[in-house]
């Protein structure tokens, strides 16, 4: 592309985690003095790529060159020596150590980090604080300041702004610009397209473990980025007939009235009716996780009222919620899986939560489980241990155990994250069927395009409140995105 060698050139990077292919084959080129965006849907492989470059994991195949020289980072320290510093998506500060000891641990002079922090307006940070007691946004900035001490050729920032309030994000951008102006480069991962348009000169887009496009964000704007990221989903979205608008039953299964919980929920009210799929949309960290936890009985609310079937309840554990028919499909399917047990045992795992059922197997266990296997067309080639199933089939188990056990309201937290288009379609179809049979479904998704595909209504959450509600059929992504940014709601 250019005469002088690129700063970073990665070719054909591939990585599997067991049966999950995280990266199929990815090429990435970063030029000196640019802020390069790495974009892609959840599970596209962005973090995996960064970890390969940073020497945290070793790729199955592929090569990496830095300024024309091949490098083989085997551990984070190797990459650091070659001039690659990283702020990972996962927290890299030790929770039980003080900030100062965290810095000492990595051999960084606390004074130099403080200088860096002063540049970002956090000079007064108390280094004797224990990391786990420091708010996440500050930890992220601290992580950045620690990386900056090494003055790397290439700084890789994996979703650093996801947890940052606007003012801190702004300071991070300033630090990035400062580096760019000195001829250093930044690889910047974010889900916020507005940020990409603002700070990045080029973008590489990953989808399903491949690089599918290299785009200059200015040209064609947001539309092209979204199209490249969503790929097939957008395509099917166009083709597939939208969900038929339906009239939900009047019966309200779950009702929340002004629920509050710490800083996460600041008064959430919603009504989930039998026979409807109620979509929920929110940017990262707007309290949606907490809302699901509270509805599922995993955490108590501080205030407000929760009604199930019209009766006020205060669930103290998931058991209480489940006993009333409110069940959860958690965000992380690993939380719903017995990885070393068989498919059948997984599907039966919600049948025995009452002591009365402990002393024999349910006579109809087999029938129920078989029914679910048929209905979900679960691939049973890997019967013996669920961990050998592909991601999509594992997700089916997470749904399937509630099909076997029965429920009234299903709380789905991003159930299609990281699974392929075909399985997604199956899950959409299943949820539609269930709601047609009278189930109430609350459906949070991080993919806006899914909303019109399966939901009847959609709520938008921002800063711990529901800020917007509309018909799903008429929802368009731009509008939802705007609301999710708090543009129409109560705001900042």
């Amino acid at each position: 592309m250019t005469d002088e060698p690129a700063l970073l050139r990665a070719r054909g990077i591939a990585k599997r985690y067991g049966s999950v292919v995280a990266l199929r084959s990815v090429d990435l080129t970063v030029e000196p003095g640019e802020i390069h965006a790495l974009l892609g849907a959840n599970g596209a492989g962005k973090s995996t790529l960064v970890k390969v470059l940073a020497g945290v994991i070793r790729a199955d195949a592929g090569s990496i060159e830095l300024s024309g020289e091949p490098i083989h980072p085997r551990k984070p320290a190797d990459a650091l020596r070659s001039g690659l510093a990283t702020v990972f998506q996962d927290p890299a500060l030790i929770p039980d150590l003080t900030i100062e000891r965290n810095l000492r641990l990595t051999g960084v002079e606390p004074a130099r980090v403080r200088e860096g922090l002063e540049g970002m307006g956090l000079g007064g940070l108390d280094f004797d604080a224990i990391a786990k007691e420091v708010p996440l946004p500050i930890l992220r900035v601290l992580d950045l300041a620690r990386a900056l001490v090494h003055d790397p050729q290439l700084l890789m920032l994996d979703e650093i702004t996801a947890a940052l309030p606007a003012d801190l994000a702004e300071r991070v951008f300033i630090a990035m610009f400062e580096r760019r102006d000195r001829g250093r480069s930044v690889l910047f991962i974010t889900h916020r397209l507005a940020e990409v348009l603002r700070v990045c000169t080029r973008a590489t887009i990953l989808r399903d473990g491949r690089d599918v496009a290299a785009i200059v964000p200015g040209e064609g704007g947001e539309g092209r980025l979204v199209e490249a990221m969503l790929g097939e989903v957008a395509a099917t979205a166009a083709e597939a007939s939208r969900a038929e608008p339906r009239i939900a039953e009047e019966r309200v299964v779950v009702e929340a009235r002004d629920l509050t919980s710490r800083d996460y929920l600041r008064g959430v009210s919603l009504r989930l009716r039998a026979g409807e799929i109620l979509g929920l949309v929110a940017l990262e960290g707007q309290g949606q996780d907490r809302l699901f936890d509270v509805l599922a009985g995993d955490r108590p609310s501080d205030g407000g009222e929760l009604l199930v079937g019209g009766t006020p309840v205060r669930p103290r554990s998931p058991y209480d919620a489940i006993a009333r028919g409110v069940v959860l499909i958690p965000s992380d399917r690993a939380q719903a899986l017995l990885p070393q047990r068989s498919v059948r045992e997984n599907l039966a795992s919600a049948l025995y939560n009452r002591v009365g059922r402990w002393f024999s197997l349910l006579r109809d266990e087999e029938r129920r489980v078989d029914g679910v296997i048929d209905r979900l067309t679960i691939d049973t080639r890997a019967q013996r241990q669920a961990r050998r199933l592909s991601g999509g089939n594992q997700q089916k188990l997470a749904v399937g155990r509630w099909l076997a056990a029965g429920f009234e309201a299903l709380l789905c937290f991003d159930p299609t994250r990281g699974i392929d288009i075909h399985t997604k379609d199956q899950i959409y179809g299943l949820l539609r069927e269930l709601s047609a049979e009278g189930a109430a479904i609350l459906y949070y998704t991080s993919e806006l395009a899914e909303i019109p595909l399966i939901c009847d209504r959609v709520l938008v959450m921002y800063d711990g409140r529901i800020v917007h509600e509309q018909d799903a059929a008429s929802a368009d992504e731009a509008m939802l995105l705007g609301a999710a940014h708090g543009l129409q709601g109560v705001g900042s």
Partner: protein
Amino acid sequence: MSLDVGPARDTLIGGEPPARRAWMRVMSERPLMVLGAVLVALVLATGAIEPGYLSLRGLRNTLLLAAPLGIMAAGQTLLMLTRGIDLSVAMIGTAAAYVAGNQSPNGAGIAIVLGLVVGCVAGATNGVGVGVFRVNPLIMTLALSGIILGLFTQWAQTFLQGSTSVAPFIRTIGAGSFFDHRIPWNVLIWGAVAIVMIGGLRRTGLGRMLYGVGDNPEAVRLAGVRIWQVLLAAYTISGFFAALGGILLAGQSGAVDLRLAQNFLLPSVAAAVIGGTSIFGGVGTYSGTIFGALILSVLNSMLTFLDAGQAVKQVVYGLIVLALAWLYAAVTRAE
């Protein structure tokens, strides 16, 4: 120009010599066959050392001596399935035997029942600590073991004095045999325990939940299971088995003292580990543990015939446990 970043670990394992892979596959798919082969080899080796061992009587002894261990290891297996461990089995067994001895004058029935009740109470105490208060199982059971030892040391000098012998019926079930002295009674009891354990783990909801709690506590919690209930049940059952084992042991040696079962603690863990139960939970069967108990029992006989002494016994025990645990870990990873 540039080199490959290098093969992944999975590829390396895939590239192992076929013989080793085949072996690993047998081990992972038919672990009981491998354990059975080890057992037979050990029996033959012991027979080579002491020809008299390869007789009906010799083999009956092996079963007779393995039964209390196998029963105590049943509880250990259950708890390891839930990511737990019970380091109080030996003291619980001893305590139950003491109580059974103390109550023997009132009849064997009462003695046995009270002994078993003591076991259940002690086990339930562990269960409350681990399940409700989330105390680390290692610490909870270790501490309870110390408490029981302290209490019974005092009680043995006061109101439990005179508890050192047990009722004839207990001696019969602990050491006697039927069918022309061919089949020990305690093996019959062990068989019943085995049926309950194997059937229970496979064919009851509690069995499902025990595996589930060990495999992924979060998943079963989100399925509405109250984990403390499962743990309470598991520890209580373990206490029951420990007590049963202790009572049989008292019947076997015909006497009770405070060290009665102390030599059974580590072997009970070892039997489960040898049988393929993972201390990380979620994986294991009682059939494996039965083989583990038999292997240890034959090994014990062999070392007795060699008068190998405590030293050799300990080293051999330790190495076997380590080797098999390592093998299981390797097999699990290679899968």
